[in-house]
């Protein structure tokens, strides 16, 4: 059993963060949402449609309304950056001009130079690869829902900051509904409108970042302890290490008006 009685709703235009230690079943949730795996029981509703009951053809269409950024980016390493970003457009038989324009647009949107389009993924830094992965997810039929699987894992603080800024921007400026899986508490506080904490496949907390900060559950206390210690250490220093600044819990971003469908 990987997940047990996991239940949450994501309101349109909001970001739900699934937070938890390694092996808690976070990535499994994303795979279930994408229909890559099937749950033994239960329902998964995407825009009101139960994806556990739909035939493969319909699932393929539903997937097109979602974009996913995998751990480490999962860029197609035999393709150039441009081919990666324009992959779904090529699949949908768009013209070369349309694909070129889209590649340029989405590379700019994620803060990358369109001149990188002819580079191979392994020629880019980890942070750039993640941004290409986000550009690819966005170019995939401009999805309304974006799923991020540990998007900042293994990145230096500056690159991680850029990625989380981008995730917030895509939600606030473009109204994307997002689900982000992470074990990084700072990222969760910065990005999440609501946070779900998992422990060994079971939901142990559900609420806002402020509520999480005040939660008294022993597991959460223990999970947040290193984060709190880091903040305390940073705050007690006279000269705050610039690298620690991103650890300070950010106030939760303004919430969109309720009323969107889950």
């Amino acid at each position, binding site marked *: 059993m990987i997940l047990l009685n996991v239940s949450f709703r994501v309101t349109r235009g909001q970001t739900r963060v699934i937070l938890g230690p390694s092996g808690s079943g976070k990535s499994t949730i994303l*795979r279930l949402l*994408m229909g*890559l795996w099937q749950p033994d029981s239960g329902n998964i509703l995407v825009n009101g449609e139960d994806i556990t009951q739909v035939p493969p053809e319909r699932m*393929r*269409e539903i*997937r*097109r309304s*979602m974009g*996913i950024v*995998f*751990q*480490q980016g*999962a*860029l*197609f*390493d035999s393709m150039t950056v441009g081919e990666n970003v324009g*992959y*779904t457009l090529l*699949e949908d038989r768009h013209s070369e001009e349309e694909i070129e324009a889209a590649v340029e647009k989405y590379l700019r949107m994620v803060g990358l130079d369109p001149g990188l389009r002819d580079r191979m993924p392994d020629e880019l830094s980890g942070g750039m690869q993640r941004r290409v992965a986000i550009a*690819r997810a966005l170019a*995939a039929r401009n999805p309304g829902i974006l799923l991020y699987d540990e998007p900042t894992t293994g990145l230096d603080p500056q690159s991680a900051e850029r990625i989380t800024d981008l995730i917030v921007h895509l939600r606030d400026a473009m109204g994307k509904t997002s689900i982000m899986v992470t074990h990084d508490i700072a990222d969760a506080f910065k990005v999440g409108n609501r946070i779900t904490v998992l422990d060994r496949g079971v939901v142990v907390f559900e609420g806002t970042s402020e509520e999480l900060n005040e939660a008294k559950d022993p597991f959460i206390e223990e999970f947040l302890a290193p984060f709190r210690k880091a903040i305390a250490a940073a705050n007690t220093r006279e000269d705050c290490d610039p690298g620690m600044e991103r650890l300070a819990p950010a106030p939760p971003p303004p919430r969109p008006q309720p009323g969107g469908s889950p």
Partner: protein
Amino acid sequence: MEALTAVGNRLRRVLEVVQDVTLFCVSVLRSAFFPPYYKHEILEQIHFSMIGSMFIVMFSALVAGQALAIQLARELAKQGAKSELGHFMVISSVRALGPVLTGIVVASRMSAGITAELGTMKSSNQIDALIAFGTDPMKRLVAPRMIGLWIALPVLTILGDTLSVIGGGFIGLGYHVTLQSYYNGVARYLTPANLLVGMIKPIFFAILITTVACWKGLTAEGGAKGVGVATTESVVISSVGILVTDFICTKLIFRVLGW
């Protein structure tokens, strides 16, 4: 009792694998026979398997053909039937040695490449990414490799057979078999039936190589080590499988043709 249970469990696992591979093979064939087709990938695979394997197949066929011709010429000379060298070279090269040799050479090269590539793609989530973007990996990754080998393997087999027979002719010169006599033997036995036997086998070899290599790649687990193990197993199973398939094909063809 425990030993029996262990044997039973082992047997069940083997049967499960056989069932999985068979279902996978059916799925591969379905993907290869029905559209949509990824033309660019198919052309890429034809190029990779045909052009990439050409030199090694030509070299192997030439050397193996000459080695075979030395053995045959020596024995035929003892029997006073040197003029039959062309005949025996056609039968042994076109019907038997050529397809098997080409199959094993291509299997060694292609199955390792396919398994390593797909295994790496799987371990780095690229396969999941394809599915997430609405692409069927069977259509995009597996079917082009099957179609590529269906085209490349018979062509390479013909090329290998040709070089093997030509090589035999040059060896024959050393045993006082004239080129004219050798050519007559070749021409007499290079019949459509013999060619058919040699050309049917590569079709089945292609199915075997693609099925084993892709299945091993797509089910590889355990990171780099797992991909390495899967690649080794893929080469071994494909190579041994070619010998077994050759035996089965030969039996069936002989029965069908009434030889």
